[in-house]
């Protein structure tokens, strides 16, 4: 017996406006809309609707809207509709619930509980339109031994660094989980902006080697696409130990998403599942991690920074301290609201901790131990705006990764159905007819617009604080005050309450 589960959304079509042009029918990969010949009008299977808004956007007469269904079980604060439906779905299929994008549950968002300072009277604000304002940052180890050659000149002993014009990078999204056109948009935008995008764990498509100097390549437990040329092309190499959306588990790209190109890039046969196991099976300790870090450095002659990416979990501070001692140049921490192309619902919604808290405790721990300069810190896992970037830097980050925000710039309305592989916006799909809906010429410009706008905003907020470089904002927690936070939250964040002076 299969219990019917009502969809979450309903398609509402204004019959006075609809001209039965069937655009919505052609646009919907979920096959929601259809034309009823006998009745001579458009109809919809609302149960299949994922609320991706493609039809709403493209309907020439604006005849469509999507509403949350008001179909309901008996009102129950404990057993709400979604909870009941999930039980039904699992009883129907016996399957693990699979979701995508970031954790949508109403957990506290600490970014929204921190307020930024501004200068008044005693130290003047700076006007970024007229005065120099530095948003360039360098990522990498800052500890150097001063060494001189026989003539007494300083030797360059600085470890390799990444130079960013804005403290923002595009976070790891694999080719496979997202489309060729999405990757091209990210790569071109990174190049134009003077920042970096990240290949994710799916290898690097041969067409994109030319963006190498703006590319971070990932090495994950599945080691897809990883070989000398791949490592050599990149500006930096990221070892993926974990991901905020699914800490403690690996990746799994279903065979259905492995077309010829993805197959070639990942170097696995077509149609075969691409599985990245939960652990790297050669890493069970910081010593083992050090081995992978150094094997990558040896393979690339110590010319590229190595990033180690972890999910924000309870012991993030201690783990980060170990990573800082493993030889890594940069630590990337991914918060539990970070996006994903597919993750088990229960893990996405219940495992990990907010990035704000993880960042504050990692930065504090590394400073306490006197090793903060051994690594740079990059944070992601729901950075939604330039204000989040400013707050993250003030909490101790060197730069931020953005993933979901970048996809939004490409048109994604956050329908959270990437795991179905039928993204109507041409982003999280490999279906050629859908992929071509995303035009990289337009997509990359929208990404450039987004980051450029954020850069202006970052400059304005810094100027307001009387700070003229990101370097001077980093770890400057006095620029933050909490609002609506408990004493424990304030102490983890290392900030004072709004209204408390120095």
């Amino acid at each position, binding site marked *: 017996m299969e219990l019917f589960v009502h969809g979450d959304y309903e398609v509402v079509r204004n019959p006075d406006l609809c001209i039965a042009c069937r655009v919505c029918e052609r646009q919907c990969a979920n096959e929601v809309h259809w034309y009823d010949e006998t009745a001579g009008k458009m109809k919809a299977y609302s149960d299949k609707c994922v609320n991706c808004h493609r039809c709403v956007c493209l309907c020439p007469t604006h005849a469509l809207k999507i509403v949350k269904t008001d179909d309901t079980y008996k009102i129950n604060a404990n057993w709400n509709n979604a909870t009941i439906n*999930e039980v039904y*779905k*699992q009883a*129907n*299929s*016996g*399957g*693990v*619930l*699979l*979701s995508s994008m970031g954790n949508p549950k109403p957990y506290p968002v600490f970014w929204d509980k921190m307020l930024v300072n501004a200068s008044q009277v005693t130290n003047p604000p700076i006007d970024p339109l007229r005065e120099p304002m530095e948003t360039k940052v360098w990522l990498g180890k800052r500890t150097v031994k001063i060494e001189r050659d026989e003539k007494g000149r300083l030797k360059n002993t600085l470890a390799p660094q990444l130079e960013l014009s804005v403290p923002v990078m595009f976070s790891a999204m694999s080719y496979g989980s997202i489309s060729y056109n999405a990757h091209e948009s990210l790569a071109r935008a990174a190049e134009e902006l003077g920042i970096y995008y990240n290949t994710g764990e799916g290898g690097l498509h041969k067409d994109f080697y030319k963006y190498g100097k703006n590319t971070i390549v990932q*090495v994950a*437990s*599945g*080691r*897809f696409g*990883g*070989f*000398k*040329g791949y*490592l050599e092309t990149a500006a930096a190499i990221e070892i993926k130990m974990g991901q905020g959306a699914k800490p403690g588990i690996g990746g*799994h790209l*279903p*065979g259905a998403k492995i077309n010829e190109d993805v*197959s*070639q890039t*990942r*170097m*696995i*046969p077509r*149609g*075969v*599942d*691409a*599985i990245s*196991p939960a652990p790297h*099976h*050669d890493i069970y300790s910081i010593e083992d991690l050090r*081995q992978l870090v*150094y*094997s990558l450095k*040896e*393979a*690339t*002659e110590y010319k590229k920074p190595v990033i180690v990416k972890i999910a924000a979990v309870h012991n993030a501070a201690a783990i980060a301290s170990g990573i800082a001692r493993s030889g890594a140049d940069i630590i990337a921490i991914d918060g539990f609201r970070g996006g994903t192309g597919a993750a*088990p*619902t229960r893990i996405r919604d219940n495992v990990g901790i907010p990035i704000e808290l993880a960042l504050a405790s990692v930065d504090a721990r590394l400073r306490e131990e006197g090793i903060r300069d051994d690594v740079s810190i990059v944070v992601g896992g729901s950075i939604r705006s330039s204000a989040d970037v400013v707050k993250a830097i003030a909490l101790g980050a060197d730069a931020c990764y953005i993933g979901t925000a970048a996809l939004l710039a490409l048109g994604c309305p956050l329908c959270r*159905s990437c*795991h*179905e592989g039928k993204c109507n916006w041409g982003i999280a799909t490999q279906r050629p007819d859908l992929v071509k809906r995303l035009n990289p010429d337009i997509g990359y410009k929208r990404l450039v617009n987004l980051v450029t706008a954020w850069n202006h905003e970052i400059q304005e907020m810094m100027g307001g604080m009387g700070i003229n470089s990101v370097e001077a904002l980093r770890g400057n927690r006095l620029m933050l005050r909490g609002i609506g936070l408990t004493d424990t939250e304030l102490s983890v964040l290392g900030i004072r309450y709004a209204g408390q002076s120095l």
Partner: protein
Amino acid sequence: MRIDARGMHFSALNEIVRSSADAEIEIDNCIGQRYIACGLSGKKITVNGTPGNALGAYLDGCDVTVRGDVQEATGDTMNAGCICVFGSAGDATGYAMRGGRIFVEGNVGYRCGIHMKAYKENKPAIVIGGKAGSFLGEYQAGGIIVVLGDGAEGSPVGNFCGTGMHGGEMYIRGDALPKTLPPQVKAERLERFPEGEAAQLVRQWCDAFGKESERYLSSPCFRLTPDSANPYKQMYTPN
């Protein structure tokens, strides 16, 4: 060129190997130096002694011969070339290999050939003369692993052979089926090694170590293959 590695730090040793213009390099007195030949191509390297972990990681087309045992993660993510070990190998030998060959005269540790993958002409192979530890070929997605089982009583492979295997094949010499084979792995008993790639690999291994190939080829063996390319397909329900 010949390098005496006694007392040398790995970074110094590897720098010499990398920057040497010589196509043939012999390293003497190797004692635990890691990452030898890491990512290298176009050289012939002989190591006398015991290299450390990650020998030939990301190897891109060198011939590496080791007169001695090797430690963990030999040929990690190796792409092309050949590693020939006159001795035994440690854990995670050939992790995520994507091309080339690893020939081991003796035994290998745990998790050998885990996550090997293949694409078209890139087809990695590991041939093990003796026994293999548990989790042989775990998550194997392509390529070929041969275990010849010299000196083994019963099956020459440990527990959980082929867990998560979803591509490629393994040949396990002998009459005993590996214990605890996971359900998604199919085992087929053969009277002798079939002609083709498997037999060819056995012959190459025998040539390398001076053994008589017919002795191995004429034995019965099990051919292990995955039942399905998508073993986890039924596990998920879209939410």
